[in-house]
C-alpha cells in the first residue's frame, strides 16, 4: 500500500511479469525464434477464424496478411469504411534502416536511436525486431504501389526526423500515413473480393468474450442500427489505436477512443505505462472554447523551420520586423548538436519553458514561432513549396495566415500514447488469444516515441510479426469450437445492453461534450506536459467528481435503436473517465522523469528529465481489480545489450 488518500492506493504484485522473450543473441533472436515456431499447415489455416478489430496501419496490414495466408478474417472498424482509420492523418513519414543515403545508418543505429529516444523504458528485444523489420516494410509498400517521394534518377529519397542524425525517413509529401493506409486498405479489399476477409464497418467493439480463459469473441454495436452483435473466433487482434482523446483536445480523430482496449483491460488485460503520453511540439495553437480538435504540423517542418521567440518578452513588433539579433532561436541555443531536430518531448518542454517565462506570443501567450524565412531565402520558395506545400496550405486554411510570408505559430499538443495494453514478445496480452498491435500496445516506444516510428511499428506488427506469432499460438493451443448462442456470449452481450440502457436512463442536464471538456482540462493541467505529486493527487480528487457528474447528470438525446452520436460519445467518455484516473495513478507512482513523463521534482540542473534506473527501470502493468484498488505488476527492464545513460541532445 502506498499514499494517504484512498483514491491513489494500489497493491503491488510480488511476482514479476515475464515478457517471454526468446533466448539468444539480440541480432539473431527474431530469425531463430521464427524458424523454431510451429506452423499451421496451409490446409488447416482455413479452419481458423481470426477477429481483427480496427483497420489502421496495424489492423489493416494484419487483416490483409492473415487473409493472404489463408485464415478466415473478420475485420471490424468504427468508420464507414476501413480506409478512414486515423493512421490516415500521419503526415511526415516512416523510418527504415535502409541506409540508401550512405550516411552510416544500420539496423543497430535505428535500434539504438529508438531505445534512446524512448528514454530506456522500452523492451530491448521488441525494439530490435522493429528496426530489423523496418527495411522489409518499405519493400512491401513500394510493391503495393505506395507513391513515395523519389529523386530524379528514380530512386527513393529520404528526409530527416527528430532524435536521429541520419536521414532515414521515407515519405509521400505530407501525406505518408494516407498513402500507407491506402496501401494496406487496397490489400484488404483484394482479400474482401476473394471472400477471405469479411468486412464489418460501422461497428464499435464493446467487449471481449473469453471461453476457458481464452479470448474467443467480441460484442460489437452496429452504429447505424444500434443492434448488438456477437462474433466468435479462434483469436482476437486488437488494433484500435491510442487514447489521446482522454485529454479532449488532441491531434487524434474525433472517433479515436479507448473503449475496446479498456473493456479488455476490465476483462484481465493489463494496461502498461498509461501515463506515457506524447505531446507533439508543433501543433496549431488553440483558438477558443469551441475548438474541437488540434491540428498537427508535421515534425518534418523542423528540417527547415527554426523555432524562436523574441529575446525581449515585451517586443511587440511583427515577426518580420524583428532582426535575427533580437530573436532567441532557443532550440539551437539549448541543443546545438540536434538544434531544431531534438526529440518531441525535449522540444515540447523547451517551448513550454519559454511560454512559462512569459515569452510566448500573443494573444494567448501559448505559442512560439516556427519560421521558414531563412530556408526560403536559402532554397527558394518553390523548393519549400514542393516539400511542405500541403502543410503550408493547411496552416493557412485554418489560421488565415500564410507561412510563406510570416512564421507559423505553434504550441505542443497531445498526439500519441506510448503506453497501452501490455503484450509479450509475441504481442499477446495477459488474456491468452488476445493480441494487441500498433499504438494500442505499449511495447516499442518506451517513454517517448521518435517521429516517423508509429507508422513503422503499426506495419511491422501487422505485416511481419503477427503472421508468425499468431500461427505459433494457434498451432500450440487446444481450441474447442464455440458458439455465439452459448451462455458465455449471451451474458456478455446482455451486460453491454445493460450498460447502454443505464447511460440513456440518467436523463440529467450535462452534455457529453461539456463533461469531456472538463475531464480534458483536468488531464491537460494536472497530468499533462509537466506533473508533480500535488498535481497528480489533485487530479485523483477531481476525476472521481467528474465521474459522479457523468453518472448522475448526463443527458443523451434519442435512443439506442439508430445512429446516435451522443450515445457513442457517452460510452467512450465513461471509459476515458476511468482511464484518466489510472493515468494519474501511474504518473504518481513513477517518481522519476523519463521521456514524455516529466515530474517536476525529478530534473537535472539544466531542467532535463532525471531518470531513476535503480527504482523505475520497469514497465508498470496495471491489473484491473473490480470494486477494489488496482494491482501493479512490474516487468523489469533488465538491459543486456544497451547501456542506460542520460540522454544528451546537446
Amino acid at each position: 500500500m502506498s499514499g494517504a488518500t484512498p483514491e491513489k492506493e494500489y497493491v503491488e504484485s510480488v511476482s514479476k511479469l515475464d515478457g517471454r522473450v526468446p533466448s539468444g543473441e539480440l541480432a539473431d533472436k527474431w530469425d531463430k525464434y521464427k524458424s523454431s515456431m510451429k506452423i499451421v499447415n496451409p490446409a488447416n489455416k482455413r479452419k481458423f477464424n481470426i477477429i481483427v478489430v480496427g483497420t489502421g496501419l496495424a489492423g489493416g496490414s494484419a487483416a490483409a496478411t492473415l487473409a493472404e495466408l489463408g485464415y478466415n478474417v473478420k475485420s471490424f472498424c468504427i468508420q464507414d469504411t476501413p480506409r478512414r482509420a486515423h493512421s490516415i492523418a500521419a503526415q511526415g513519414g516512416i523510418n527504415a534502416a535502409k541506409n540508401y543515403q550512405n550516411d552510416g545508418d544500420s539496423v543497430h543505429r535505428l535500434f539504438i536511436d529508438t531505445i534512446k529516444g524512448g528514454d530506456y523504458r522500452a523492451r530491448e528485444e521488441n525494439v530490435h525486431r522493429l528496426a530489423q523489420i523496418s527495411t522489409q516494410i518499405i519493400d512491401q509498400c513500394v510493391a503495393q504501389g505506395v507513391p513515395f517521394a523519389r529523386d530524379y534518377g528514380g530512386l527513393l529519397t529520404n528526409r530527416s526526423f527528430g532524435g536521429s542524425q541520419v536521414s532515414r525517413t521515407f515519405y509521400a509529401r505530407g501525406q505518408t500515413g494516407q498513402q500507407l493506409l491506402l496501401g494496406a486498405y487496397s490489400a484488404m479489399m483484394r482479400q474482401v473480393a476473394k471472400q477471405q476477409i469479411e468486412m464489418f464497418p460501422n461497428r464499435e467493439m464493446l467487449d471481449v468474450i473469453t471461453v476457458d480463459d481464452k479470448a474467443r469473441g467480441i460484442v460489437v454495436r452496429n452504429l447505424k442500427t444500434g443492434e448488438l452483435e456477437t462474433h466468435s473466433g479462434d483469436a482476437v487482434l486488437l488494433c484500435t489505436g491510442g487514447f489521446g482523446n482522454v485529454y479532449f483536445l488532441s491531434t487524434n480523430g474525433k472517433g479515436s477512443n479507448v473503449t475496446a482496449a479498456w473493456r479488455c483491460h476490465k476483462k484481465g488485460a493489463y494496461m502498461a505505462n498509461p501515463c506515457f503520453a506524447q505531446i507533439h511540439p508543433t501543433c496549431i495553437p488553440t483558438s477558443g472554447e469551441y475548438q474541437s480538435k488540434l491540428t498537427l504540423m508535421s515534425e518534418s517542418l523542423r528540417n527547415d523551420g527554426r523555432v524562436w521567440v523574441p529575446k525581449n518578452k515585451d517586443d511587440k513588433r511583427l515577426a518580420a520586423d524583428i532582426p535575427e539579433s533580437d530573436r532567441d532561436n532557443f532550440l539551437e541555443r539549448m541543443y546545438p548538436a540536434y538544434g531544431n531536430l531534438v526529440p518531441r518531448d525535449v522540444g515540447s518542454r523547451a517551448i513550454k519553458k519559454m511560454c512559462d517565462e512569459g515569452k510566448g506570443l500573443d494573444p494567448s501567450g501559448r505559442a512560439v514561432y516556427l519560421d521558414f524565412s531563412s530556408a526560403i531565402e536559402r532554397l527558394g520558395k518553390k523548393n519549400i513549396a514542393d516539400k511542405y506545400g500541403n502543410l503550408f496550405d493547411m496552416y493557412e486554411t485554418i489560421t488565415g495566415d500564410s507561412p510563406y510570408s510570416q512564421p507559423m505559430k505553434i504550441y505542443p499538443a497531445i498526439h500519441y500514447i506510448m503506453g497501452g495494453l501490455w503484450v509479450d514478445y509475441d504481442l499477446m496480452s495477459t488474456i491468452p488469444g488476445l493480441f494487441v498491435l500498433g499504438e494500442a500496445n505499449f511495447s516499442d516506444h518506451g517513454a517517448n516515441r521518435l517521429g516517423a516510428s508509429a507508422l513503422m511499428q503499426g506495419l511491422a506488427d501487422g505485416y511481419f510479426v503477427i503472421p508468425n506469432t499468431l500461427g505459433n499460438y494457434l498451432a500450440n493451443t487446444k481450441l474447442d469450437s464455440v458458439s455465439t448462442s452459448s451462455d458465455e456470449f449471451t451474458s456478455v452481450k446482455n451486460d453491454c445492453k445493460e450498460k447502454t440502457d443505464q447511460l440513456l436512463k440518467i436523463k440529467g442536464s450535462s452534455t457529453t461534450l461539456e463533461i469531456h471538456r472538463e475531464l480534458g482540462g483536468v488531464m491537460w493541467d494536472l497530468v499533462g506536459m509537466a506533473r508533480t505529486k500535488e498535481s497528480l493527487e489533485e487530479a485523483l480528487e477531481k476525476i472521481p467528481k467528474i465521474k459522479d457528474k457523468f453518472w448522475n447528470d448526463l443527458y443523451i438525446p434519442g435512443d439506442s435503436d439508430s445512429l446516435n452520436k451522443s450515445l457513442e460519445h457517452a460510452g467512450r467518455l465513461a471509459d476515458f473517465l476511468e482511464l484518466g484516473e489510472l493515468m494519474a495513478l501511474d504518473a504518481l507512482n513513477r517518481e522519476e522523469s523519463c521521456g514524455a513523463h516529466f515530474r517536476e521534482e525529478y530534473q537535472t540542473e539544466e531542467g532535463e528529465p532525471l531518470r531513476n534506473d535503480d527504482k523505475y527501470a520497469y514497465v508498470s502493468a496495471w491489473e484491473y481489480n473490480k470494486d477494489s484498488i488496482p494491482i501493479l505488476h512490474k516487468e523489469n527492464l533488465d538491459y543486456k545489450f544497451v547501456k542506460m545513460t542520460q540522454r544528451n541532445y546537446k
Partner: protein
Amino acid sequence: MSEVISLNLQVWKQSSNEDVGSFEFYSVKDISIHISFLEMLDVVNENLQKEGKEPIAFDSDCREGICGTCGFVIDGVAHGPLAKTTVCQLHMRHFKNGQTLVIEPFRATPFKIVKDLVVDRSSFDQIIQAGGYVTVSTGNAPDANNILIAKENAEEAFDSAACIGCGACVASCPNASAALFTSAKISHLSHLPQGKIEEDERVKSMVTTMDDEGFGSCSNHAECEAVCPKGISISNIALMRRNLIKTIL
C-alpha cells in the same frame, strides 16, 4: 470585422433512407469566425441538446481534411464555397453575418441516406475491390530501389492517389457519376510499373462495377474537379477512358 456572426441554417433532416426528409430551420447566434463549419454545427447541436431536442447527425473524424469522412452540400456546392477544402477545414470567416445557408447531404442513388447529413458510401469500397490494388502478397517484395520510377511519374501517381474518397465528385455530378473517384485509382496505379501489369483487367473490372453500383456516366461537366477537396484532375477520367478503349481494340 466583427469576431462573431449570426446565421440562418436550413438543414436537411431525414431519420432513415426509407423516411421522407425535409428541411428544418435553425437560427444560430454569435458564432466565432475562427471556428470551423463543423465546430459551428457542434455548437448548434450542443444548444439543441440543452433544449432537449435531437441534434443534427453529421459525420466527421480527423477534422484535418484527410480522412474523407465529412462532407455535405452547402448552398448547392459540395464541401461549400471554398475551393480544395473539406467542410471540416472550412472556417466561419468565409461567411457573412446574417447569411442564410442551405445544408443538404451528398445526394446520389448509390449513396443511401443513413440519417440527416450522413450517407452510405460503401459502393466506393466495391469499386476498389474490383481491382484497385496491385496483386502482391506480403513477403514477396524485391528491394524497394530495384523498382526505378521517374520522379514525374511518381508525382503524377501521387496526385491521383491523394483522393480521400469523400464522394463530393459524385454529389456534384448531374449524372451522379463516380468517374473521378474510379479513374483516380486507375490512374495512380497506371503511372507506376507495379500497377501497369494488371492495367487492362483493372480498368474493365472497376468500370463495370462502377456501372453495376448504379453510378451514372460521365458527360464532361467537370463539376467533380471543381469541388474536389484534393484537386484531383479530370485528366484522370480521360486516361481511364483511353485505357478502357485500348482493352476493346
